[in-house]
């Protein structure tokens, strides 16, 4: 299969060897699990349990609310200790509503929905309902509810389901391990998803630095002529949906458009495996594979972690920290976000927990820009980071917006190559936040204006109606008076 070139990108030090040979091990149940109501993009789920309830493994704890949302289930049996605010695994350190579950140690299953006997005879709708009920979201880190993404076939003509096994972020090896150890499950999940989407072709894209995963997946796919497993160049950010699509199809997804408009839908390998579990066994999403790595961790591991496990418990399971980390990162070192502390839970989108040493973080002092143009050359989105950052520094956010800062997906490549160590991607994250905020404020202002105008009109109408009523009453009085004066003249009444 021909692979097309992709613009820009970098070749960071991958450091995957720290964990790539560590087989996935299950995490023992911790004392308490913390399940935030929002582990996905969209509206937070609505809790259906309260403090003191006894729940079984797989039982629904919080139901999806609104058009874009995802349900959450009990990763084990136990007692609901509380539903309260707990620090979110988010750089802001803000709290969010979280269900706390005390495992009873029995790990007793609730009654699960019957598996679909033959998924390939089921309708697309049936599969989507099952996937939604299982609370599955994009496990690559984007956490978009998968059932919605499986509905793209209804509005677009789709040709290819692209299974994303690129895993281009340094340090992370969880997808690599899932492909090596559970290739058959991933392929089965992918086939079910392709059936729901109505795509004939399935392509699995894997970066060429994972030969064992390539071999395992090719072997598992060999029985299905419509599946091809292809190697893609090792080049960050190959794992971005748009760039992987470009490498496979040669087509560039226009800004603000979805890859679906090119006939391609991308799902992560972990998501495919979760779909396999949901459809074949009726099992909701209760755990995920997390890579724990970084120079400050005693022993890096790939762990199958029950959702809601505290990061501190996870790190303790890896032998704790061997030195104080300079930074704890949620996800990979390029696009991952720093965590406020270790006392936050693992959620559906947690692909990695990295405890990085000062050496690995490599913070350096910022120097003035030497206009070398490196950032422009490597930006995989064809943006001009140096110019955008200059605008943002001078608070000209509209100028940055015109240069396309909203199309930046924060891959961090520009910051990585900048010889002056300018925190370019920080400028863009800030600008995107501010521009989104301005957009929300504008919508609110418009709403307030309409409401105020409606009220003014209503008050005017009421005043007019009052006046008219008063006039009518006066006329009636007059007429009545006239009639009483002249009772014979009935016509005047």
């Amino acid at each position, binding site marked *: 299969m021909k692979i097309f070139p992709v613009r820009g990108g970098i070749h960071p030090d991958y450091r995957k060897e720290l964990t790539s040979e560590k087989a996935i091990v299950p995490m023992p149940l911790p004392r308490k699990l913390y399940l935030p109501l929002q582990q996905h993009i969209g509206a937070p789920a609505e809790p259906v349990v309260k403090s003191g309830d006894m729940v079984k493994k797989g039982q629904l704890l919080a139901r999806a609310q609104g058009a874009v949302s995802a349900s959450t289930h009990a990763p084990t049996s136990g007692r609901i200790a509380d539903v309260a605010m707990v620090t979110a695994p988010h750089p*802001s350190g803000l709290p969010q509503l979280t269900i706390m579950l005390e495992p009873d140690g029995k790990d007793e299953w609730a009654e699960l929905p019957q598996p679909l006997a033959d998924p390939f005879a089921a309708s697309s709708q049936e599969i989507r309902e099952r996937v939604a009920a299982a609370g599955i979201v994009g496990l690559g880190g984007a956490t978009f509810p998968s059932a919605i993404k499986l509905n793209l076939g209804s509005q677009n003509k789709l040709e290819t389901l692209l299974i994303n096994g690129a895993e281009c972020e340094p340090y992370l090896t969880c997808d690599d391990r899932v492909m090596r150890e559970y290739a058959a499950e991933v392929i089965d999940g992918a086939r079910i998803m392709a059936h729901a989407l109505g795509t004939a072709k399935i392509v699995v894209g894997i970066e060429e630095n994972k030969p064992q995963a390539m071999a395992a997946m090719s072997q598992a796919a060999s029985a299905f002529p419509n599946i091809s497993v292809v190697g893609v160049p090792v080049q960050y950010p190959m794992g971005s949906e748009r760039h992987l699509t470009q490498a496979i199809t040669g087509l560039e997804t226009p800004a603000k458009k979805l890859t679906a408009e090119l006939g391609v839908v991308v799902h992560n390998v972990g998501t495919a495996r979760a779909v396999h579990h949901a459809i074949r066994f009726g099992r909701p999403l209760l755990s995920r594979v997390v890579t724990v790595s970084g120079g400050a961790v005693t022993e890096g591991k790939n762990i199958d972690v029950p959702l809601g496990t505290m990061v501190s418990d996870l790190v303790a399971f890896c032998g704790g920290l061997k030195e104080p980390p300079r930074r704890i990162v949620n996800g990979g070192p390029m696009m991952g976000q720093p965590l406020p502390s270790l006392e936050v839970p693992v959620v559906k989108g947690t692909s990695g927990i990295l405890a990085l040493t000062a050496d690995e973080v490599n913070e350096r002092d*910022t120097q003035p820009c030497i206009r070398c143009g490196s950032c422009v050359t490597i930006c995989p989105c064809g943006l001009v980071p140096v110019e955008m*950052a200059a605008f943002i520094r001078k608070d000209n956010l509209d100028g940055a917006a015109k240069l396309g800062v909203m199309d930046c997906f924060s891959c961090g490549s520009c910051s990585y190559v900048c010889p*002056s160590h300018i925190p370019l991607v920080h*400028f863009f994250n800030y600008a995107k*936040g*501010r521009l989104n905020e*301005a957009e929300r404020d504008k919508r609110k*202002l418009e709403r307030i204006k309409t409401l105020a105008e*409606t009220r003014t009109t209503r008050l005017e109408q009421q005043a007019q109606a009052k006046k008219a009523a008063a006039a009518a009453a006066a006329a009636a009085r007059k007429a009545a008076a006239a009639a009483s004066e002249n009772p014979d003249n009935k016509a005047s009444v």
Partner: protein
Amino acid sequence: MLLAVGSLVAMGATLGTVLGIASRYLAVEGNPLEAELLALLPGAQCGQCGFVGCGQAAAALARGEAPVTLCPPGGKAVAEKLSKKLGVKADLSEHEDKGPQYAFVQEDLCIGCLRCANECSTDAFIGAPKQVHTVIRENCHGCAKCFKVCPTEAIKMCAVPVTLGEWHWEKPGSHELH
């Protein structure tokens, strides 16, 4: 000499008449800048700026008699837009922005007198006479007019909490980089 004076007087008179007529025919209805400024204000006529309503506030802004930070419920967003329109540099970092607020009715204290509902310019209240009132959060722009009229102090002004989705990074420390 007389001729010169006479011709000047005549010139003055004719030009004066021409200008007078021109001004009558070419008169601009209202001040266009004022209208543009008005469009940037919330339009809720809450009166917190100290003017009777948004129209008067816009007029004062156009005359340069009011600061761009005059609108409390509009906050930083409106202040920024006004300063851009007027081309004035306002140091907004100094501007104390309490952040967006909303009104909350403590239902046990409310006697259902309806004063708040009559005061609110955006119809944010629901409830009938003699019944507990509540505020629809999305319709409230935090002008605090209801807060001022409530006889039982049932209304609390609360800061709108920042949600995870709305939070964003601060601007990186900017030295002379570019």
